[in-house]
């Protein structure tokens, strides 16, 4: 019994230490690679020193937090718009046959277009201000949301709809109490995709035309052969991305508690 218990707790420790081990391995590989190729890749110490310098001598009169906030603000504005409009449109396409016939085919058509392919058109039409950047991120986040929501809505189990009808529920009650909850896990999958897609797109947009933002830092580091600055920006992106992922998984547990149980 004790041996079994010991074995289980050992397995548990191993299970929890595996992710730490994986990250540790990446850092070791980084140290080794940068030691052998200092021109191609700065080491962790060089990156930390560069990080301190970013705070001492801000780039474009903006601290690292300022750049991160500039990017985050663009992503969050676009995401809020995309979540509101995208989920509503996805519900409409998934629920209403006429909407599916008209709009569904349009979305199937634009789905394979990578969001960054829109950048030249958007810059041509709207210039290089704040709006076009948010618009590009919106395009990148909106499409996966519409598609996931519509797919989730159309996957609703007929028997659950019958339950709603049997109790005399009208269309609105059935949509609200049966169809949307069924689609919530798919909507969340869309939200997760939209967040990562939002980050990718905002960086691409900022790398082309921006003074502030993490993408602008990457471009500046790249053009000035300042690889340590590139890495400072990349690591910041990774940290913010991870924090957003953690936030979303907590939010999913709150919104879809039956899934986590």
């Amino acid at each position, binding site marked *: 019994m004790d041996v079994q218990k010991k074995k289980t707790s050992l397995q548990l420790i191993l299970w929890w230490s595996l992710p730490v081990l994986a990250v540790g391995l990446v850092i070791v590989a980084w140290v080794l690679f940068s030691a052998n190729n200092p021109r191609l890749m700065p080491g962790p110490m060089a990156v930390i020193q560069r990080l301190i310098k970013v705070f001492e001598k801000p780039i474009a009169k903006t601290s690292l937090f300022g750049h991160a906030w500039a990017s985050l603000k663009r992503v969050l504005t676009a995401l809020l718009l995309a979540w509101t409009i995208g989920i509503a449109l996805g519900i409409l396409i998934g629920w209403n046959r006429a909407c599916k016939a008209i709009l569904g085919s349009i979305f199937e058509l634009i789905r394979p277009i990578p969001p960054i392919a829109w950048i030249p058109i958007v810059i041509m039409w709207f210039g290089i201000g704040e709006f076009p950047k948010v618009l590009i991120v919106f395009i990148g986040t909106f499409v996966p949301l519409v598609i996931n929501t519509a797919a989730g809505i159309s996957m609703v189990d007929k028997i659950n709809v019958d339950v*709603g009808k049997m*109790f005399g529920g009208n269309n609105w009650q059935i949509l609200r109490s049966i169809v949307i909850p069924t689609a919530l896990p798919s909507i969340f999958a869309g939200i997760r995709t939209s967040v990562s897609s939002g980050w990718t797109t905002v960086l691409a947009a900022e790398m082309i035309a921006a003074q502030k933002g993490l993408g602008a830092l990457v471009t500046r580091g790249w053009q000035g052969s300042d690889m340590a600055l590139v890495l400072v920006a990349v690591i910041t992106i990774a940290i913010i991305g991870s924090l957003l992922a953690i936030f979303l998984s907590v939010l999913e547990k709150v919104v879809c508690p039956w899934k986590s*149980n």
Partner: protein
Amino acid sequence: MAEINKDRPVKISVQNLTKRFGDLLVLDNMTFDIHENEFVCVVGPTGCGKTTFLNCLTRIYHPTEGDLLIDGTPADPAKHNISFVFQEPSALPWLTVEENIAYGLKIKKLPKDQIEQRVNQILDLMGLQTFRKSYPGELSVSAEQRIIIGRSFAMQPDLLLMDEPYGQMDVKVRFYLEDEVIRLWKELGSTIIFIIHNIEEAVYLAERIIILSNKPANIKEELIIDLPRPRNIADPKFIEYRNYITDKIKWW
């Protein structure tokens, strides 16, 4: 007709119920009454049209001729309270046990305190208080089926239809759940039509059994089961009923 129904008013009246699909006659001129708080089981040979019969009662199908009256007026899901326990598990996975039981009551927009009172009554009667905050996915299949039964009884329906809700369970669990249905029926005074293919269970449950003929289905015979409860499946009278009905639905 029925001694046990003498003092109960007619709740459901099925009049000349006929259903055709094109040239195919499935239900042939069925007429019967169900009294308030009566427990009726419907048995018949496989493929005789039991499901069509049920679908006409729930208004999923509209009868070709004839009608279903509840308290003397044509049945209307918007006006009357018809509840249905499906054969397949149909608890809503995103709602807790108590929310599932309250679901129909919320759709009907009953006052909050009334919903709470009815949900608590059902949870008490079914011994589900401990699981009230659990999700169906956390419980066994039989517990999920109990939630569905509780949800239907909570509606205090004019008519409760049950379509073999225990079809997928083993015999022991089936008898356990049937005892539960009997207890709820007695406590809440519901009027029940239970479609069933297992004759032993029909004799165990019913006050009256309607035996359907082969397709096109009509009523072959109605039988009052006047055995005391709890019923003993080994009782010679019980076995006599069972054998008699088995003989009646033989098509070979």
